[in-house]
Every structure is written in structure tokens, then in C-alpha cells.
């Protein structure tokens, strides 16, 4: 070692190597020395020392050869020295890399066993948030209707009787008011009118049509309130998505086509739809809309025999009410009932979520137990 180091510290002239022959011999000597030392690099520490001894920028052997042999060499020798140095460098670099790979491959098995991760352990758990399931269902409904040109609108939850009832063709003492038990606000004495909590999102139909002329296509999500005693299927606050489309050429067929599209997008293409005539003061013809039961595929029988508990054996599940906008409603918003037509629907979001996810108690939505929230990531 010392002989090589002492030689690379000297110039070629000092080594009496003025001809290519001795130069080649000198390089062969250095290379032999390198090969010998390489074998001695048996672990990471000795390999690093070995690498630095040969490739170190300041005092590595190759740097010394460059500084002491190549740079001062006579012009006639420079070419030979350069070629020999390049060859040596390629060899040294390749061998050092090969040595590293070999060392890593042969690393101590006990170390690896100690370091090996246990894949059955959890990773670091960072807190993650989630959307409420009501919100998720609404976003799905919004996506479906945005695709077919329905914009989103909203309106106040505290409404006047005019928007909640009268303008929707529900005058005072109309029998359907008995079915929509209503919360009223306590107002200061002398207040000119009443305020109530809207019993449906339909008032926003009126507010939307007051603001714009046809064509109108909106969906309206929001909270609605009915003064029902709470139980597993009733909450005095729940959520609806109102839909309204009014144009000069909308027919009942367009209405059923739109609803069918929605149901196929939401529940899947295999679901069948059915429209039953019904009655709402602000639509005519009015329908109740049913989808084939997603739990028994419309058969009405449960997998284990007996009637399907979700559709009570009917094979159909009542989804929501809808219909063609009653012409009387247009009178309240200065639309010409002889020229325009349209349809409206009111989807219960909570009910849809209960159906889709098999939730049997509506109250669980609003308790906000984190064990419930976690189930809908």
C-alpha cells in the first residue's frame, strides 16, 4: 500500500517513467493494489473508507494520479497516461459499485430481521374527516341533475304562508294543510303576517319563477319541517330536494323520462319505475312515484322466504310525489299557463338515504354519533 501511495504522490518524472512501457506497469501495479483492497471492504464502514481512499475528491488515489501523473506529464506521454487513467477509473468505479451491491445483498440477516416491518400492524392513523351522509346523497342527486341542465337554487327555511301555501294553490283551510302540520314563529305584537317553518321546499318554486322567465330548470335542496312527533320514520326536521322544470314544450312524457333517468342513475339501471296518479294542490296531473324494491329486486319475497320486509311484499317502494305544475300556480308568478308547461317533484333525501343504506331510524342522522359518521367515509 505504502509503495503505491508513495508512488502516486510523486510525478512520473520522479519515478523515471518517461516511456509508455513503465507507465503501463505503474497503472497495473495501482490496479492490483485496488483489487486487493477491494476484497478487504467487508462492511459498510470499511467500504466507505475504501471508496473515499480511491475516489475522494481531495486526496483519493485517482485524484492524486490526475494531479501528479497526468497534469505534469510531458506532451508525448499525456495521451497514454490519460487513456490508462480512464481505464483505471472505469474499473475502480464499477468495482466500488459492485462491491456496494454485494455488501448490501450480504447484509447481516439478523439486522434485517430486526428492521423488517410487521405488516399486520396499522400505519400511523391520522384523523380523517367525512361528509355527512345526507350531504353525500344530496351531492349525488345534484350531480345527476346538473348533467341534464338543472341549476341549483335555495330559499329561506322561515317562510310566509303565502309562499309555503297560497301561491302553491293551497288556500287557508285547504284539507291538505291538515296533513302538513306546521310550526309557526312567535312574532312581536303587531306583526303584519305570520311566519312559519316551510313544510316543503316547494316555496322555492315560486321564488324561482318570480325571479326568472322560462325556461326554468332548478333543483332546490334544503331542510323542511313538519310538526310530527319524532319516531323511527318521522323527524320534525328532514331534507328535500325540490325539482322544477318549466318550458314551452314540456310534457308528461318528458317528466316521466326525467324521473326515470334519475332513478336509474341513483339506484342502478335495473330498477323499474311506476307512476300512480295522486293528488297535490300544486301539480296536475299528480303522481306518486314508485321504484321496484331494491331489496328483493321487485319480487316482493325475501331471500329466506316470506314477504320482503322493506316493500311489505309489494315489490314496489314509494319514493316521492311529483306531477305537472298546476296551471293555477303559474297565475301566482305571471307565467302564461296557455303557453308554458312543466313538472315538479319533491324528493325526500333522508328517506332515499334510509332506503339506499338500509337505515331503519331517521333519528340517527341527527344524533351525529361519530360511530355513525365513520360508517360513511
Amino acid at each position, binding site marked *: 500500500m505504502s509503495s503505491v501511495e508513495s508512488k502516486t504522490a510523486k510525478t512520473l518524472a520522479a519515478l523515471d517513467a518517461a516511456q509508455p512501457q513503465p507507465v503501463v506497469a505503474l497503472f497495473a501495479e495501482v490496479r492490483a493494489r485496488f483489487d486487493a483492497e477491494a476484497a478487504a471492504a467487508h462492511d459498510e464502514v470499511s467500504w466507505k473508507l475504501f471508496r473515499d481512499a480511491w475516489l475522494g475528491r481531495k486526496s483519493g488515489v485517482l485524484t492524486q494520479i490526475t494531479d501528479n501523473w497526468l497534469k505534469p506529464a510531458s506532451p508525448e506521454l499525456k495521451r497514454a497516461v490519460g487513456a490508462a487513467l480512464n481505464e483505471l477509473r472505469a474499473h475502480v468505479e464499477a468495482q466500488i459499485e459492485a462491491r456496494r451491491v454485494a455488501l448490501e445483498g450480504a447484509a447481516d440477516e439478523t439486522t434485517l430481521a430486526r428492521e423488517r416491518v410487521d405488516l399486520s400492524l396499522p400505519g400511523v392513523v391520522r*384523523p380523517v374527516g367525512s361528509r355527512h351522509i345526507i350531504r353525500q346523497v344530496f351531492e349525488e342527486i345534484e350531480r345527476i341533475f346538473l348533467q341534464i341542465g338543472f341549476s341549483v337554487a335555495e330559499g329561506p327555511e322561515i317562510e310566509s304562508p303565502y309562499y309555503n301555501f297560497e301561491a302553491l294553490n293551497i288556500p287557508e283551510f285547504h284539507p291538505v294543510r291538515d*296533513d302538513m302540520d306546521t310550526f309557526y*314563529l312567535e312574532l312581536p305584537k303587531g306583526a303584519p303576517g305570520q*311566519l312559519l317553518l316551510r313544510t316543503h321546499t316547494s316555496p322555492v318554486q315560486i321564488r324561482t319563477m318570480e325571479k326568472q322567465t322560462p325556461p326554468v330548470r332548478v333543483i332546490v335542496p334544503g331542510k323542511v319541517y313538519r310538526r310530527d312527533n*319524532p319516531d323511527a320514520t318521522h323527524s320534525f326536521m328532514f331534507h328535500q330536494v325540490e325539482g322544477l*322544470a318549466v318550458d314551452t314544450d314540456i310534457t308528461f312524457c318528458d317528466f*316521466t323520462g326525467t324521473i326515470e333517468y334519475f332513478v336509474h342513475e341513483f339506484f342502478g339501471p335495473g330498477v323499474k319505475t311506476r307512476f300512480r296518479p295522486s*293528488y297535490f294542490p300544486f301539480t296536475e296531473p299528480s303522481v306518486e312515484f314508485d321504484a321496484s324494491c331494491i331489496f328483493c329486486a321487485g319480487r316482493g319475497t325475501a331471500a329466506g322466504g316470506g314477504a320482503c320486509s322493506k316493500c311489505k311484499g309489494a315489490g314496489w317502494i314509494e319514493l316521492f310525489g311529483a306531477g305537472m305544475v298546476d296551471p293555477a300556480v303559474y297565475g301566482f308568478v305571471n307565467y302564461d299557463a296557455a303557453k308554458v308547461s312543466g313538472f315538479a317533484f319533491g324528493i325526500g333525501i333522508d328517506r332515499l338515504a334510509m332506503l339506499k343504506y338500509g337505515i331503519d331510524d331517521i333519528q340517527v342522522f341527527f344524533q351525529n354519533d361519530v*360511530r355513525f359518521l365513520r360508517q360513511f367515509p
Partner: protein
Amino acid sequence: MKVVYNWLKEFVDLTAPAEDAASRLALSGTNIGGIEQGAQGAVIEAELTTNRPDCLGHYGLARELSAIYRLPLKPVAPKPAESAAKAVGAVRVEIQSPELCGRFTARVIRGVKIQPSPAWLRERLEAAGVASINNVVDATNYVMLELGHALHAFDYDLVRDHRIVVRQAKPGEKMKTLDGLERQLTPGICMVCDGDGTRAVGIGGIMGGTETEISFSTKNVLLECAWFEPVAIRRATRFLRLYTEASTRFGRGADPELAELASRRCAELILQLAGGELLAGVVDAYPGKRAPKKIALHRSEFLRIMGVDVPDKEIEAILAALGFAPVRVDAQRGAAGSLLAAWECAQPSWRAEVEREIDLIEEVARIYGLDKFPPRFPVARKAAARLPHAAAEERLRERLMGLGYREIVTIPHVAEERNELFRPAEATPARLANPLSEEAGVLRSTAAVTMAAALEWNLNHGQRSARLFEIGRHYRLQGQQSVETRVLALGATGEAREKGIYDAARAFSFADLKGDLDAAGAFAGGFRWQPEGGAWLHPARCGRVFLGAQELGVAGQLARRVAERLKLRQDVFLAELLLDPLYVAMRAAGDARRFVPLPRFPAVERDFSLLLADGTSFAAVARVIQSLGIAEASSIEAADLFRGKNVPAGKYSLLVRVLFQSPTSTLTEAQITDFSGKIVATLEKQLGAQLRAG
């Protein structure tokens, strides 16, 4: 209504099984609750919509089935034997309030024998869900269930002067109804009275009185079959909170023309069940007689609404079966399928709600079958738009979820007592006039109150750590107006980091809440914090959040006093921020955002370990450093903070990290030393800060 299928067969020769009929009814507008088999055969539970009072009797549903199956409907034409004596001489009727009572018919049956009804009648009433009382009362109920028109039988001898006076109730008037309750009345309620009209013997169309009730000693019967104004009936039932079979039928609109027929049918039945003789004719006061309305139906309008045509024959058959007597009136008469075809229809007296062309269109469509109108997809003519703030709300929601918050949805009804704990003094609460309970008597004045309740629910159900947010509204009154304001509520409790294999536990603190809010505020250019919060917050751990000069809300730890009231046994952190100004600022900040070139020269960090008096804020330190005007001091941060060991009382230790950077050159050691020296000297001079060794 319970519909006895065999009863329907008395009016239509139905051959289809009850299940088929029920299904066809359901698809033509009569909602079916179910079918049960009993001693009387199939009983169908029909849930009728309020617009179909005509179907509150078997005959009305038989008419529906006759239209559905195209089978003839048998007429009801009772011809009871009458005595020589006339009813006109035996009873007088005077309607003083024709606006409440449009028709009043009276018949008299003499010499009846009141006794229990025969088995066939009792069983049929029972199948229809009506209890049997005696033969005469049962006859009135039977006719009500058969024809859908309510009747009332009086004991003729107990009706003073054999005279009926119909008038509205007087202020303060009272009467005892058949159910034994004394009823407080009010003007607008229609009273059936006797004699000189002072004594009420029944509330018209709702319930009779006890004083003229049929009993087993009744010999002679006065049979009332009248027509009462529906809106007045609905007002009265709501005022009295008294809902009866009669009030349901009159309240939804009975058929005035049917009154005489129903009376005749009932008289026939009474003669059959109780014997006696029927006085000839009827006393019929009918001030409300209306001429039948004419309604036109045009094929062009049908097509415009429904989109698909229905053949002439179908239209005519359906309308005829339902009683509309359609007549082609257009010039193309006889040209089948003409687009110009028009029919004139007569409104049947039992279908007062069918008044317009659209009503006829619905009649045709529902019987023809809604499944015969093929679904089609309408073409949109305008681009769809989300709500103006939808994008900002979504970014905010995503950020909060990224920070580990779960979204909640709450019912805004809260107990006033709770609302008061959180309500800012200037906010007027929105109270309900008719709450379901005191626990839900007021709409929340802030979303903090419902957020606290959500955390409370979780703590009470063994969930000790929770991070929640809600995007909702709070509700207040401003004078006589309601104000709904979009707000964000945050709530957190328990561990910010749970103990696990890799980490130690760390409790959620005010700093977590502030950091999370600031992460959201970054979208809007950053929040500014000011001391103090609401009275419901811990006085030392709270702050007000601002965007520029606009206050957005408060954040902090729930005050111990409030936490104790709510029985919360661990620290709870809450915030409520206004969303509309935040959304506006988010949009503005987004529009104004521009790229800042990355620095080309290295930055040098210097730490200053300072000993400061308690109460000297980091902001004060930063301000002093900034006041030196060292342009190269590109950031000033608090890197560490501690009290206690080795720190004298009344002082705390703050490690301030200043980053020096120049956009034009690499800073030299001499420059850094110069800056540092100035900083230390100024902090010592202005804040009394001491530089700690090391």
C-alpha cells in the same frame, strides 16, 4: 276507508279478483294500504286523497271500477213505500245561514221499533270498521258507507215544534254533543237547532247533540240529510278539534244533489229494519242549488300537457263512465282523431273539484293508464349552474375534512334555556309559537349550541374524541323579520392525537382549533385574531376571528360554567364563523393570487431565546423586530415556548426564529451578526427582554 269488495259488486258486476281490482285502483289514483280477507270476503284499505270525497262511499269506488273495467254502473233508485200523510205537514225547515248550509232535507218515519240490527248489517258495518248501535243509527251509517253522504237521525218527538232552524253559532254558545262533551262554539259554526232556533240539537255536518238522540224508546224518526259548506266545516273542525266521519265527508266537499237520494235510500232501509211508515215526500230547503258547470276538453291541450294522444273512443268512454257526459263540439265532429277535436263536458255534482280543462286531462290520463305515456328525455336549453358559493363551500369542506373534521347535520330546534347559554346579547331569538316541546322551543341563535349538543351526545355515548363541523344556518329575528345566516360551526374534544404505537397522546387544545381555523382562513388571505370571545367561552382561551375589519365570529374553549351546566366532564372547543363574508373573501383572494418567484439566494436562520414578562405577546416581539426595518428579515416565527423550570416566576421563555434572506445576494456572517445585535438590543430596550444563554 275499509272497502268491502262484495259490497262493490252490488253496483258493478265485477268478475276480477279483489287483488286485481285493488291494483287497478292503485294505478288509477286510489292509494291502497292493503287487502285483508274476513267473514265478509276481501276488505280493501283505500287511502283516499282529499280531492276525492266522492270515493268516501262504496258507490264512488264502484264508479271508478266501472270506468276502469268498462262495466256498467247500476243506478241507485230506492222507491220506499210512502204513507198518505205528507212530510211537509209534519216538519218545517228553515235555513237562516245558506252560506253555511246549502241544502237541508228532512223525512219523517213514524212508528219505528228501535232494536239491535240484524246480523247481516252488523257484520257488514263491522267489516267496514263501524260499530253497530241500533237499527236506525246503523241505517244512517250504512248509507254513509254506501253512498258517501252522512246523515243524522233525530228522535222526532224530542225536536221542539217539529221545526228545524239552521243558523250560525252565537258568541259564547255551548252545546253537549253525542260523545257527551260540552262544546264551546263560535260564530261561523253551523248549528242545527229546533223550535224557535234557540236550542242547538246538532253541530251541522259534524256531530249531533244528546238531547234529541235516538234511543230505544224512540217511536218516530226525523231523518236529516243535508249539505254543508266544506270550508266552514274545516274551520269548525279545526276550532273544535272534532273530526268525525261526517266532518271528513262534508269537509272535503259532499254532493248536494245526492242529499235527497241518500235520504230516500236511508228511509227505505229504516222501513226494512225498523218498520213504521214513511211520510210522503221530503221537506227540502235547497238555497245552494247550482247549475252544473260546463268544461271543455281540447285534444290539442291534452297533447300539449301529456305529450301523447289518446283515441277519441277512449276519451269519450272514460269521461262518460266517470259521469262527465262528453259531447263533441268542434267543427270536425265525426272526424276521428282530429287534432282539433273538442268535447264539452258537464261537471257531475259529486266532482266539485273538477272545474278546469287540466282536471279533465288528468281524469282521462289516470284511467287510460299513466304507463301508456312513454318516457322521453327533454332537451336542456341553458347551462346548469351550481349555487354561487358552491365552489368556496366545497373547498372549505374539503379542507376541514383534511384536518380530520367530520360533518354533522343537526335539527335547529333547541331548548330556550340552552340557547340562552350561547346567544349573543344583541341577537333576538326566533321562538316557535307552537313547539312540540320546551326542549325544542326556539330555533338556534348560534350553531354553537347544537354543536355543543353533538359533542355532548358523543361524550355520553362513550366517544371521548370527536372533531366535528357543520355548515348550516342560525336563525334570529330582526323586528318582525326573520334572518337566516349561513354559518360554520366547529367542535372538538378529547385527543388531538391518540396514543398509538408510534405516537404519544396529545390533548386537543386551543392551538389546534386556531391552527385548523387558520388553515381554512388561508383560502381567504388569512384570519386576524383579537382577544376576547363570547361570554360562553373560557376567558383566557378564546378569540375573535376577523377578515380585515369584518368580524366573522368567535372560537375557543367552552367556559367551565357552561360546560358544567351541560355536564361536560372534559374540555370542549367550539367556534362559529359567518360564511358569506368568508366565501366572498375566498373568491377575492383567489382572484388576486399571483405567483411569487422562489428565492435565488440562501436563507440564514437565527434563533433568539428570550426571557419575557408574562403578558408580553409574540405579536409584540414581532412588531419590535419589524420596526427595525430590516428588509432581509423575511420571516419571524415562534419556535418554542416554555415556563417553569429555570424560568423565574412572572416570566416565560420564548424562542424566536428569524429568517434572513436577500433577493439580490448571499448574506455575509458580518451582516447577520449586525442584524442580530440590533434585534437583541431593541428587544431588551423596548420589551425588557433578556437573551438567554445557549
